[in-house]
């Protein structure tokens, strides 16, 4: 007997698709077949209207791909474009710049993770429909969350003047170096919230999170110096170790009828990017204070329970606060926070860790510095095949336990919780794809 069962899922918090997200599968005697996560967000064609624009406009344009992680798009773009610099930047300037960019990026991770944990995930875990209703019962927890989120936004403002679509970043540096007084004020805020972040991690660990242990490939950046955020080689826990220029030799994107978002495979297989993948690959590079906090937790990294992603986010918030303090500690401003740049014609690529995972950009420039071709692969596209695989496994386990009297509500709720672990950013996930331009 085969009955086609379509379970429509409205992913309120996580997919922000307003009725356009749906989960669909066929059920045959408790077995899931042909599971599809439908995502529809109208395409916005970023890679097309970048064509013909000057490279100096790229940071402002790509920021608009995502309001929640504009810094990730800006950082990846400038990293890619600056690889075409002739001559290179002076070394001491470059060191200063890398430090400040890492600080900016820490701000975005804190902001985005705090938003995810408190406004999106926690209400669901506690059975509230929103953080606002959760705040009536748990005011301190929600308040701590929005305070950490505000800290992240303040860090972005320090270097970018505003937290959504910041205006401080340019190819070659920052438009202006922050004033030392502003840095000192921020350092005080960071110190003050260290303890809160630590408590947040312990609280997350105390939650009764579901368990769904699965085999998957973790992909992230990695470098020798630190817990990779802004720079590194692309590695996996199964031996991949490549430069960002080699990305397309290993990762392939493809389209599925059910979704405007592209899917991506590594050597023909789904893979995971994001906080859990990063901790799985790089946990031993966390600062000693973060490692000793992590050692107190019930979870040990590497870990294969996707539901522990929320704990990974908490750990990264704490890690970012400590990193930002370190990097700003002996801050000295520069009279001019940018270098005059000249970019040679050619192809370039860049990869950084957006809050949701690996983000890859590719550009081709002509001799006048105009973009001939652009290709942007956001983390949500990369995770989509993995999300479907996870849904299949997790829902199958439940349905085999209850083949006759399963509850549709339970399937829907479980499905939403699975998807939320990936913190998908639907706006990001759609417009990118392989650019096939007729040169």
């Amino acid at each position: 007997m085969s009955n086609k069962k379509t379970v429509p899922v409205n992913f309120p918090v996580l997919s922000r698709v307003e009725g356009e997200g749906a989960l669909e599968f066929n059920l045959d005697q408790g077995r899931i077949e042909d599971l599809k996560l439908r995502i529809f967000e109208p395409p916005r064609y970023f890679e097309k209207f970048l064509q013909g624009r000057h490279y100096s406009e790229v940071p402002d344009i790509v920021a608009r791909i995502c309001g929640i992680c504009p810094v990730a798009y800006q950082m990846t773009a400038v990293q890619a474009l600056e690889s075409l610099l002739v001559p290179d930047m002076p070394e001491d300037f470059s060191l200063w710049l890398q430090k400040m960019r890492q600080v900016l990026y820490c701000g975005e991770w804190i902001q985005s993770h705090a938003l995810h944990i408190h406004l999106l995930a926690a209400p669901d875990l506690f059975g509230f429909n929103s953080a606002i209703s959760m705040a009536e019962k748990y005011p301190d927890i929600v308040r701590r969350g929005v305070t950490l989120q505000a800290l992240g936004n303040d860090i972005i403002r320090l270097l970018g003047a505003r937290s959504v679509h910041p205006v401080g970043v340019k190819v070659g540096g920052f438009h202006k170096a922050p004033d030392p007084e502003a840095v000192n004020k921020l350092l005080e805020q960071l110190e003050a919230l260290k303890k809160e972040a630590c408590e947040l991690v312990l609280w997350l660990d105390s939650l009764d999170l579901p368990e769904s242990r699965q085999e998957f490939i973790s992909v992230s950046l990695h470098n020798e110096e630190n817990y990779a955020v802004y720079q590194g080689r692309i590695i996996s826990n199964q031996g991949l170790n490549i430069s960002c220029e080699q990305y397309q030799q290993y990762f392939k994107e493809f389209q599925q009828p059910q979704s405007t978002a592209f899917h991506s495979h590594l050597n023909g297989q789904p893979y995971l990017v994001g906080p859990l993948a990063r901790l799985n690959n790089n946990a031993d590079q966390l600062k000693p204070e973060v490692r000793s906090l992590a050692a107190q937790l019930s979870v040990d990294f590497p870990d294969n329970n996707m539901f522990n992603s929320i704990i990974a986010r908490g750990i990264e918030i704490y890690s970012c606060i400590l990193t930002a303090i370190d990097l700003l500690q002996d801050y000295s401003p520069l009279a001019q926070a940018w270098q005059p740049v000249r970019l040679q014609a050619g192809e370039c690529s860049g990869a950084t860790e957006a809050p949701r995972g690996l983000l890859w950009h590719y550009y081709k420039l002509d001799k006048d510095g105009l973009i001939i071709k652009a290709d942007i692969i956001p983390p949500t596209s990369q995770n989509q095949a993995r999300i479907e695989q996870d849904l299949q496994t997790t829902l199958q386990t439940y349905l085999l336990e209850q083949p006759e009297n399963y509850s549709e509500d339970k399937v829907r709720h479980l499905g939403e919780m699975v998807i939320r672990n990936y913190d998908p950013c639907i706006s990001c996930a759609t417009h990118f794809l392989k650019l096939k331009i007729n040169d």
Partner: protein
Amino acid sequence: MDKPKIAIHKFASCDGCQLAFLNMGPELLELAAMVNIVHFVEAGMVAPQEEVDIAFIEGSISTEEDIERIKFIRKISRQVISLGACASSGGLQALRNLADGDQWLRELYPEPQYIQSLKSTHPLKKYIKVDFEVWGCPVNTGQIKQLISSLLLGAKPQQTRDRLCLECKRQQRVCTLVVKHRVVKQQETGQQACLGPITAAGCGALCPSVGRACYGCYGLADNPQPHALSVRLEGLGFIGREIAQKLLMIHSYEESLQKEAQQLSAKQRDVL
């Protein structure tokens, strides 16, 4: 009196304008005490069918379903407020209206038949009556708080569309059209191409505050003079393509900007 009901809807956009609510910090909880947020998917409230006093709309209209949905929202909402560039003028993605949207779709997607999309994208006002427009890319929390305060008091929201230059001068910023800050060639510097003279104030003159030229996030000021600005920019050494691309960025939907850009490219053709 019952608390006013509000809804926040999203169409094609980056989600950044909704963050003006979510980034309020602890004030978001205070706002929730003053109004009843019934629909705000990103924050977890889902009731798209419920009648509301105020609907805030982010994003531009890009599909047939979008058109149906925005018309329905208009029916169930006493006031409709557009939130940000996409909802008010189509935003950055309206650049596709100036190109062949179908061709772009074919070039980007190997399987274009999977994608449902109109040929062009439009602001809300093309399809429905909009009671008030909040401009910005993105809008900021201050604008939202001010707007909601006015509406709660029953006052008509105020909005001036003064030029950014006023805001910038009040802050005593150095004018980027005057100071030589841009590297033209080695050793040689020039002024930057600032859109402040035709752009509405409201952001707090953020770009000039970090020493860079305005790129027009807040839309056109009252009585803008794009041609006068473009003549000035030519005088500073910018070529037609550069000026046209500056004008046609976030608010390329505006006809006065399109007209100026067309004249610039026609002129460039004459020279060649």
